[in-house]
């Protein structure tokens, strides 16, 4: 799910980089607040743990294995802000040292996995982690963290104009759902094993969340994820239809002389339109998150 450079169109990676910078700054300050310096080695070593965890295979089905991705697990044990910082450091090292994920696309990767992925994973635990549905919340958090980052990555690729026919999209979504469920199961199993070793590792979320508020928050995350995907497929499909019916002959001649000026101009206007649609969508989601955040904060202070 690490998007390399060259996949995202310029408006998309530029927007994501611009959005990621202040978000990252905020999260880092948040993680530093209330922690002493002992957190630095702790966060670094736990990042190394997440890397190493990829070597331990979990048997799933016939002959296939899966491994932990870790965003949700870190959020439960270190807290969401610190987990975001650790995942950010992991993404930076993967891009720099292992050439896994791009540099210009790093803003997008950070938002997908380190920010949204970790926070979406923490949400169910935050809401129901103290109550009767604790196990379910841990499982749902693991699954949701993976699903949210995967859907975001897919949406960014679609908005950038990377062609994905319905069949390819369907197969990749199905694969993501399966790996999301596996991540949930692995996260839950590891948390349970951790608690038998030493109960202090898993943090206690503050209790007393209302069920309705949680349901609204979850629904918002799911709706946003699905909405981004649907919104970005629809214009793409229309554009493709136009390409195939109206200017199919042009496309044929363009194959021999790749990407002449005409096609570039066509894509650029398409990008602008799609990018603004995407931005409007992002603004809507941001507004929704802000409102929900306010509501949660007010509830907490009472």
């Amino acid at each position, binding site marked *: 799910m690490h998007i390399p450079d060259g996949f995202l169109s310029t408006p998309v990676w530029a927007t994501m980089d611009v959005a990621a910078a202040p978000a990252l700054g905020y999260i*880092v300050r948040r993680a530093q607040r209330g922690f002493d310096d002992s957190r630095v080695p702790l966060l670094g070593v736990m990042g190394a743990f997440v890397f190493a965890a990829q070597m331990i295979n979990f048997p799933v*089905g016939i002959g296939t294995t899966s491994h932990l991705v870790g965003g949700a697990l870190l959020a439960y044990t270190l807290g969401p802000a610190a987990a975001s910082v650790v995942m950010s*450091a992991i993404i930076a*090292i993967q891009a720099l040292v292992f*050439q896994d994920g791009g540099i210009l696309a790093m803003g997008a990767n950070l938002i997908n996995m380190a920010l949204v992925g970790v926070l979406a994973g923490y949400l169910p635990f935050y809401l129901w982690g103290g109550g009767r549905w604790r196990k379910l919340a841990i499982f749902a958090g693991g699954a949701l963290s993976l699903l949210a980052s995967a859907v975001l990555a897919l949406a960014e690729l679609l908005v950038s104009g*990377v062609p994905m026919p319905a069949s390819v999209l369907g197969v990749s979504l199905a694969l993501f759902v399966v790996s999301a469920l596996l991540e949930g199961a692995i996260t839950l199993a590891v948390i*349970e094993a951790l608690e038998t070793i030493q109960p202090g590792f898993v943090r206690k979320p503050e209790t007393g969340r209302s069920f309705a508020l949680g349901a609204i928050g979850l629904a918002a995350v799911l709706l946003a994820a699905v909405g981004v995907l649907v919104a970005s497929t629809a214009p793409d499909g229309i554009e493709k239809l136009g390409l195939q019916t109206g200017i199919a002959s042009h496309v044929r001649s363009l194959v021999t002389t790749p990407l002449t*000026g005409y096609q570039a101009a066509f894509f650029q206007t398409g990008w602008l339109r799609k990018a603004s649609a995407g931005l409007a969508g992002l603004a809507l989601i941001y507004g929704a998150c802000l409102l929900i955040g306010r509501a949660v904060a007010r509830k907490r202070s009472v």
Partner: protein
Amino acid sequence: MHHVVLERWSQGASVLHRRDPRAKIAALMVFLVVLATAHRALPVLGVALVLLLSAALIWARLPLFRALARAAIVLPFSLIFAAVCWLTGDPARGFSLLLKSYLSALAVLLVVSTTPFPALLRGLETIGAPRFLLMVAQFLYRYLFVISEEAQHMTIAAASRGATVRGVMAGARFRAAAGALAVLFARSYGRAEDIHRSMLARGFLGRFQPAAALRFRATDAVFTLFASLAPVLLRAAVERAL
């Protein structure tokens, strides 16, 4: 192991190795943006940029073919999407995906294999990346292979006790893997606490003291200028000619 190669490469003493990390970061960003925004005459531009990066690799006295092969690590991912593009009748976009992802990875590889990782992080710090995050990244890099080796020992130990034998209940093996991961987690946590205690014992005051300050010399400025101009001029020339 994987990282040892990079570690050895970045310890060289070529002209490129000796440049200030900020100069190399600036040149890298220019290269990446020039590449990412290019849409015309991509095959020719691609060849030109590969030649440019290869020349830089030779200049840095790095093994050219091994570096070219290492950057190919991005290709499996790109190939899947390129194949989809091909099937949906847009081979030009497929080619562009392959070319841009490969060239970007090669450019990043060139920078990290001529700059030791701590120097690279210090360069990033002076241009405004959050210090806390970079310190976490430095610890992560330092302990990455320590913890990975521990994980490897655990998998070997598990395999020697019959963890990979067929016919064992999958549920039991799943739980065993979860247990192993939990043990690794607890050990890593404990190790981090030990590390912090020994750091305090050695007088750690909340930030790393670099052995020598970074210095941006006139040669670095000249290097930045030429290294940034090279891809821009190449692209302008290619687009004018075609």
